[in-house]
């Protein structure tokens, strides 16, 4: 009997998969692009992401659980799809390495200015190698345990309640200089990662689609609560001036025997970032495996990790990284919408053809 991913494991996996690094600068982004009370924008973006996920769920249902490669290749010859596949792989590996890079830059900024950059890259590559080697099942199991540790830090926010005041929210909505489109792209990138779930189809139990929604919902709740708190905790201009407001939030919390807990929080956050990176690498590995079925999967792992390593070494400064992350996220958002729509179209065409055949 083949092992399948259970919905509970899946929802935790999906929650860990989503790009959490954006969370650290999310209050500033929403304040910059959406003006006062910008935290409400996350609810709108959540609705958009839900539409995206619904497409994936519909594909699963209509395709009756077939993997998307089967669906696509039933209608379109492989050699046409290969460049598109390579494009997707490139974007995914790129975004994974850029996220690694961004995390390392922030870490070095805050805590370890002098430690060599390559050391962190090696650590992340090692950890991703271990996870990729075990396949998706081991990854899911490990992520359940890691999830518990990452979410422990949420409890620290209780220390913020004494300083929280509703009056700082102001009664203005979305006023100030705003750029809705760019802002929407930035906030959407906080939910990225979920599009890789389109490749899960052959490995899941029957009723798994609710796991997608649950995982996404939990993510949204966490983002929303932290945003809400930070808008009430900080004044508006203070958020605009602070690059990583959530980091300051954790700096403020003080446990009696440990101060400056943000060090621990950010280190634990490495697990979440690791999950995002590994899922992108895994997605790339699956597509590569599909292009050429004869080569052993381990070879792809080495190739992908090597590329990821080299790409992560490229940026020199945090401005560079942010620029690249922005561009790659936009492309990834594009893929996240385009790929399901594409597969849906193919499904419809296939069902039309079948009806016509039946009619004949």
């Amino acid at each position: 009997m083949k092992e399948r991913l259970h919905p509970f494991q899946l929802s935790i996996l999906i929650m860990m998969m989503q790009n959490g690094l954006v969370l650290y600068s999310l209050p500033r982004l929403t304040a910059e692009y959406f003006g006062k009370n910008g935290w409400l924008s996350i609810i709108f973006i959540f609705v958009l992401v839900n539409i995206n996920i619904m497409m994936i769920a519909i594909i699963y249902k209509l395709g009756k659980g077939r993997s998307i490669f089967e669906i696509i290749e039933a209608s379109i010859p492989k050699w046409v799809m290969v460049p598109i596949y390579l494009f997707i792989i490139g974007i995914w590996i790129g975004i994974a390495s850029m996220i690694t890079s961004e995390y390392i830059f922030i870490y070095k900024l805050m805590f370890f200015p002098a430690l060599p950059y390559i050391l962190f890259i090696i650590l992340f590559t090692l950890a991703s190698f271990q996870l990729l080697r075990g396949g998706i099942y081991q990854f899911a199991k490990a992520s359940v345990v890691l999830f518990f540790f990452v979410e422990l830090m949420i409890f620290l926010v209780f220390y913020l309640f004494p300083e929280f005041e509703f009056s700082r929210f102001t009664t203005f909505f979305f006023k100030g200089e705003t750029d809705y489109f760019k802002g929407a792209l930035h906030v959407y990138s906080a939910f990225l990662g979920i599009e890789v779930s389109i490749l899960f189809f052959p490995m899941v139990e029957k009723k798994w689609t609710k796991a997608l929604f649950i995982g996404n919902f939990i993510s949204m709740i966490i983002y929303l609560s932290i945003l809400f708190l930070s808008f009430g905790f900080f004044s508006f201009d203070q958020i605009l001036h602070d690059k990583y407001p959530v980091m300051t939030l954790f700096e403020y919390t003080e446990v009696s025997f440990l101060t400056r807990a943000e060090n621990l929080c950010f280190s634990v956050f490495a697990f979440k970032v690791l999950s995002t990176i590994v899922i992108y690498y895994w997605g790339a590995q699956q597509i590569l495996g599909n292009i050429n079925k004869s080569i052993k999967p381990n070879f792809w792992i080495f190739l992908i990790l090597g590329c990821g390593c080299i790409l992560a070494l490229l940026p020199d400064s945090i401005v560079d990284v942010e620029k690249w992350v922005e561009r790659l996220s936009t492309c990834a958002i594009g893929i996240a919408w385009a790929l399901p729509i594409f597969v849906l179209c193919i499904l419809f065409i296939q069902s039309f053809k079948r009806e016509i055949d039946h009619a004949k």
Partner: protein
Amino acid sequence: MQNNITVWIAICCLFLTGCGTSNIIEDLGIIQSVAFDISESKENPLKTTVLFPTVSKKGTFDSHTLSANGKSTHETFIKLQNLTNLKLVSGQNTILFGEELSKKGLMNVVETLTRDPELGARVKFAIVEGKGEDLLKKKIPAIEDNAEYLFTFMEKLGNQNKVLNTDKYHFLRDYYDDGIDPVLPVLSYKGKNVELKGLGSFKGDQYVTRLTISETQMLNFLSGDINNGNLMISIHDEKSGKNENLFLRSINSDNDKKVDTRNRKNMTVEVLIDFKGSVLEYTGKIDLSKEKYQKQLEKQVENYIKTHSKKLLNKLQKYKTDPIGIGTLVRNRVPYESWSEMKWDNIYPTLNFDVRVKVNLINTGKST
């Protein structure tokens, strides 16, 4: 086989760590307290004094102060590094600003403190009457370590009075917020001990006026809800002509502020305070067990609070500083466009305040 590769790579990467720098704790001079002042020289206007503990080989504890002049905060830090054998780093500290520097404007200094990731959000800020350097260098016989004393002193103040709970986060938050102005406690070292002189109120980032201790108490009551506060009142008794003292303790007060913004030219702010306390000291002769006399006393306390808070508010309006946060109230009531056009600085002095107090004495202590 693959496990072996992992292990080997992990071991090799440990060798790379020689390139990093470590901060072994006994090689560090962890700065406990910093004071910024205006120095006498023209080209290096900023003077920084740092205080850090040192431990000798025998294990005895001692603190060390150093000063340097420079144009900006980090320039002075670099100069200070050259004066000691330990590596200076910022730890949890208290930061003191000299009076003159605060009057000129603090933002230059504070901005560096924000940008530096080594400083946490809980560093305590305070103003020193005179020069901060002198406070740090003063040797008080009962105090071993000035910095730790200051830190625990300010923590105690913060626990007692919400208004006096000032650190980097509070200062920045109120500075950036256009509806409220920051405050910092004022310490003085003249005399035998380190003394809290009052509360300094800011306009923007400049220190404009100092509130006395009693005014600070009033400010506390006006700002928000108080748990476990206390109040010292001096009442003039008509019968005997003397001044009697009344001390209330365990005060729980609820505070509600309403702003009437319909008439833009002439806005009124209504402050309703609900005051409950227990009497700890009363030097007068009235028998407090009778209800009539209690009511009389309550009325006297009400009057006292009303008059003094009015005085305080007038003083604040005169200096155009708003630590209570009336601006936030007004902002939440008017639409965005009016708020952006309104020149709050000019309107603030024209506000009318109406303070209404309701006092309730919970008990009168153990005796009548």
